């Protein structure tokens, strides 16, 4: 069965430090991978995606993510965190030829001033 795991419920990072939010996946076949962000009382917003090609993908607000096929991971990163990055982050996976996307449980990111 397809699944996506976000092993950390919460990540705390000091402002200005690099941040990483972890995601691993389990699918049969080549995955499409996504990161979404949710601010309080809002719907999810698309951040970035990996479909094919370069393993390092860049997205909105200075975020990037690295696809690692051997480790089945797609960790979200940012070189220098901002307080405004504090939000709930969701990793998601879709298998080609399947119309559904599976979301992880979410990781709450706290950036400390």
């Amino acid at each position, binding site marked *: 069965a397809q699944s996506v795991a976000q092993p950390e*419920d919460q990540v705390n990072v000091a402002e200005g430090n690099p941040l990483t939010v972890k995601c691993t996946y389990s699918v049969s076949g080549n995955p*499409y991978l*996504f990161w*979404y962000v949710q601010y309080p*009382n*809002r*719907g*999810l*917003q*698309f951040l970035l*995606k990996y*479909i094919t090609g370069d393993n390092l993908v860049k997205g909105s607000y200075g975020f990037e993510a690295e696809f690692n096929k051997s480790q089945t991971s797609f960790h979200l990163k940012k070189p220098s965190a901002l307080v405004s990055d504090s939000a709930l982050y*969701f990793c998601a996976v*879709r298998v080609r030829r399947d*119309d*559904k*996307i*599976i*979301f*992880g*449980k*979410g990781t709450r990111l706290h950036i400390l001033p």
Partner: protein
Amino acid sequence: NAGVTQTPKFRILKIGQSMTLQCTQDMNHNYMYWYRQDPGMGLKLIYYSVGAGITDKGEVPNGYNVSRSTTEDFPLRLELAAPSQTSVYFCASGSGGTTYEQYFGPGTRLTVT
């Protein structure tokens, strides 16, 4: 360009009542989705549609019904509301193809008492 709109924003139902959550998108997307978000549980797919006249069950369809008579609209019907249906409901749309990212509405917060 409004994107994905949902009504109502909030609703309180009594056990056994019925209601319809409305969702409309103006991006001419073929794919539309209904999710529910429970605290600490991420998003669960209720129903989805790949085009007008076509719907399919997601992960948690029991207690819900959908229809898709037009490309723009994808209403979610709750019959005989139960406390377990207390949740935040999100509608999303996407163009499919090689993009696959989804665009979310602002959500409907439903309480069943």
